[in-house]
């Protein structure tokens, strides 16, 4: 059996690790753009922050490929999949044939349209190489501009602030992390950040960057100028799918997969940030580009590629964000669109700095926001996942003393 895995991020790595114990003979080839050993992508922001060195990034030993008897093709980008010929072709023209293929190419930063993007010190923040570039630039940086208040933009801003750099964050909506947090939690985050000196501007975009060789100013849509000697573009990510033939493989925003993480083409699977799965809370297709889902999808896809039939229960958006002394945990639907379908309850305790919100669809929990005292977040997440009817008073879930026992039959 010839297994080919495109991408050596956590989805690809987990897939390889679950194929190998089931099929000891099959040949596994991993094609990956990045040459760094398998690493913890979310941790790159901690490298920027200065909390850890990049030597702490790898999550598997240098012997990973050897230990699992994997043929690595690193520093190679797949440019084409020949579905009928069961072959993938790299940019360098190398052809690798497969019986089972996993597309685990992750996501790429969403590009922006602006002039002067070729200037030095304008970065995306997706790979360890990006952060290495930023680290090299840091000694000469006094003022930085971060575009986008999503998870990455926010983490970039936080990391730069920790380095003592003056940061301006440009965001479209009224508060950062509008995809992750509801308005109330978003406002609490915003207050924390501005309280520590972050300059936040909303409703503005960059039209151009200028400078001699390296960036010096950003020109904004309201005609104003902002001095900056480093800029980070954090306007979200898009599934990395340019090499996927849409006339053969069904695509929406991501690669569409069934409950077994297989695409419409038998033998071709997808997992991780590139895959579009069924979202448990939303009950619709969704790209949940988060680490734990990439890990689970890779693991399950790998088992299915090796001939087992393991069902993937669907994905759930969730995140924990820790800034200064505040923790924010969110899961599922946090800002319901319709009052007819969803009911939300919330509580706030200014003394402890806590805020909690639960979103229900009928008697099922579909979303939760916890600001501080987040320890029971896993119980709530499990409730959203299982879609178990909530038979106790819903307000109980808002109680900081809520625990799993309260859900058990007496």
């Amino acid at each position, binding site marked *: 059996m010839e297994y080919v895995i495109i991408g050596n991020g956590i989805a690809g790595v987990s897939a390889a690790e679950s194929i190998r114990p089931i099929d000891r003979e099959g040949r596994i080839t991993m094609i990956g753009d990045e040459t760094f050993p398998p690493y913890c992508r979310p941790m790159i922001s901690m490298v920027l922050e200065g909390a850890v060195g990049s030597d702490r990034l790898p999550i598997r030993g240098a012997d990973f490929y050897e230990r699992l008897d994997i043929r690595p093709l690193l520093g190679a980008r797949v440019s084409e999949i020949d579905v009928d010929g069961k072959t993938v072709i790299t940019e360098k023209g190398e052809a690798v044939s497969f019986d089972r293929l996993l597309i685990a190419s992750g996501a790429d930063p969403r590009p922006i349209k602006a002039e002067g993007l070729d200037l030095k010190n304008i970065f995306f923040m997706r790979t360890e190489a990006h952060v290495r570039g930023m680290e090299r630039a840091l000694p000469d940086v006094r003022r930085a501009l971060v575009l986008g208040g999503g998870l990455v933009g926010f983490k970039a801003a936080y990391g730069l602030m920790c380095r003592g750099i003056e940061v301006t964050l440009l965001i479209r909506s009224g508060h950062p992390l509008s995809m992750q947090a509801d308005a109330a939690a978003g406002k609490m985050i915003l207050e924390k950040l501005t309280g520590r000196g972050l300059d936040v501007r909303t409703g503005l975009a960059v039209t151009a960057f200028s400078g001699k060789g390296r960036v010096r100013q950003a020109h904004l849509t309201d005609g104003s100028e902002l001095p900056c000697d480093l800029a980070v573009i954090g306007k979200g990510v898009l599934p990395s799918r340019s090499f996927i033939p849409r006339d053969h493989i069904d695509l929406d925003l991501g690669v569409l997969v069934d409950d077994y993480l297989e695409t419409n083409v038998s033998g071709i699977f997808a997992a991780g940030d590139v895959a579009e799965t069924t979202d448990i809370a939303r009950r619709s297709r969704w790209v949940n580009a988060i680490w734990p889902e990439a890990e689970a999808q890779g693991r399950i896809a790998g088992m299915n590629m090796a001939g087992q039939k393991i069902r993937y229960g669907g994905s759930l958006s969730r995140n924990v964000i820790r800034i200064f002394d505040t923790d924010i945990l969110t899961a599922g639907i946090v800002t319901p669109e319709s009052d007819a379908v969803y009911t939300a309850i919330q509580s706030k305790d200014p003394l402890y700095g806590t805020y909690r919100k639960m979103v229900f669809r009928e008697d099922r929990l579909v979303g939760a926001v916890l600001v501080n005292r*987040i320890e029971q977040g896993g119980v709530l997440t499990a409730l959203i996942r299982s879609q178990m009817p909530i038979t106790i008073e819903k307000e109980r879930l808002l109680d900081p003393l809520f625990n799993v*026992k309260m859900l058990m039959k007496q």
Partner: protein
Amino acid sequence: MKQIMIHPERCVGCMQCMAACAAAHSRSGHLFAATLESPLPKPRIHVGSGLWEEGFPNRCRHCDPAPCLFACLPGAIFRDEKTNTVRVDPDRCINCASCAMACPFGVIRYHAVPFRGGKKVVAVKCDNCIERQGRGEIPACVEVCKSGALTFEESGEAMKRKTDAVSRSVSAGAEGTELPEGFSLLRAIKKARLQLQERR
């Protein structure tokens, strides 16, 4: 292999297990000295209360497969196969709380531990008192539990004891279950008190 078993129906909510656990994971290992330490030792077993304020000792189940282990971003959570214990490597842990979202029992906490100067905040959970077991001692929470809510035994034996108790309780002329009456009485009192409060 012996494991810690929880029998919540016997928990009276005295929280002695919490104090013993914190002391067992302190620098000194002794309760009184532990109260003076920095970082202040904290328990890894958490006595909460159910809907009727019944005691509920909650600790890591060392699940297999373990959701926290899969969700861990830096790969700091691992299984110690010999003792079947899910452990956190404080050196690798980045305090991201990804495991907080994964644990369906809500038993992971985040604070400093006596590790490298005791400044680093990390994920902390029950480690089955591996160190104590290495010295031939039983887990601290079990040692201190007076009501039998925590036992340390082979899981097969515990299962058999429970099955026997059930079969005794359904056979003719049986003396009832092995649970002494005091436990159900305590429970009934707590419940009645809450119900009275509600009615008021």
